């Protein structure tokens, strides 16, 4: 899922300063699962904004709504009759939702209420970690199911670097060294021969480096 983090409250308040009629808009997908932008968080943030605006002495109307998804046009349509009545929408969706909503309704400012952080997993309740960077050319078959692009702080393909220490990464003693994990699995599966192969430089053109990406399935077009 896409994981996000709520923006600092003061930053949100500053962003909303010019507006008095605001819609806080959640998304029922990833940001709901990672507890940052679902209906619950919309209610909390809206309540916070109302109280803060009141103590600041600014008259404000804050409404709450959560869409099934903000990255699909069909769900954005739900807003077509109401969005015009707001000065701004504070979206708690990931960066995709914020942009897509803004593209659909160009007359209403759509502001981001969260910082989109990474694609990851729920390691345990309340704890999310990164797993994928969407490099566009998966190497997990070669690296025993552990992604060096994402999980190595240096994204190196022939690790571990000299900073790997006791199985941990040099940048954070709580962070496992990805190459340490990969080698453990090579050993378990008797595949140290694979470790000895030099992985050549990666073609990053399929990653963000190649420019904004798109995927097209003509057969699905209506």
């Amino acid at each position, binding site marked *: 899922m896409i994981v996000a983090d709520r923006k600092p409250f003061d930053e949100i308040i500053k962003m909303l300063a010019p507006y008095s009629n605001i819609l806080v808009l959640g998304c029922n997908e990833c940001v709901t699962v990672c507890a940052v932008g679902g209906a619950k968080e919309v209610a*909390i943030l809206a309540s916070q904004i109302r109280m803060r605006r009141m103590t600041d002495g600014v008259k404000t109307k804050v409404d709450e709504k959560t869409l099934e998804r903000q990255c699909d046009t069909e769900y954005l349509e739900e807003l077509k009759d109401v969005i015009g009545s707001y000065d701004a929408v504070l979206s708690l969706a990931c960066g995709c939702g914020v942009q897509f909503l803004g593209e659909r309704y160009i007359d209403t400012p759509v502001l981001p209420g969260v910082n989109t952080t990474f694609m990851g997993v729920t390691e345990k309740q309340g704890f999310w970690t990164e797993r994928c960077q969407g490099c566009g050319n998966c190497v997990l078959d070669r690296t025993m199911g552990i992604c060096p692009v994402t999980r190595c702080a240096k994204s190196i393909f022939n690790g571990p670097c000299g900073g790997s220490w006791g199985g941990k990464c040099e940048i954070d003693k709580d962070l496992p060294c990805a190459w340490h994990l990969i080698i453990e699995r090579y050993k378990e599966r008797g595949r140290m021969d694979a470790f000895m192969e030099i992985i050549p430089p990666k073609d990053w053109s399929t990653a963000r480096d190649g420019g904004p990406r798109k995927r097209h399935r003509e057969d699905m077009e209506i």
Partner: protein
Amino acid sequence: MRISYPTSIKIIKVPCTGRVDIIHILKAFEAGADGVYLVGCLEGDCHYLNGNIRAGKRVKYIKKLLEETGIGSDRVSMYNVSSAEGMKFAEIAREFTEKIKALGPNPLKLIRV
């Protein structure tokens, strides 16, 4: 035991403090409460295993939300009291009321936009 406690306190009964959500407390402040405190069972005595412990963690989080909102983090608290400790319950009620009195009314009530 006819122990008295301040009349300004409105008790809201829940099956377990674990049931109290963040939004419930924020709504209480939005509605004008000057302070909110949770009284859960003693740690280790939760009928639902750890509802009171989770409530305690939630209160910590709510303190952060209230602080940034401008209400102030001191207006919310968590206590753990057993059902056999009536005296302690009343004592906490007085203590919390004193604390809130010292803080003054909910800032939202002072401002009328």
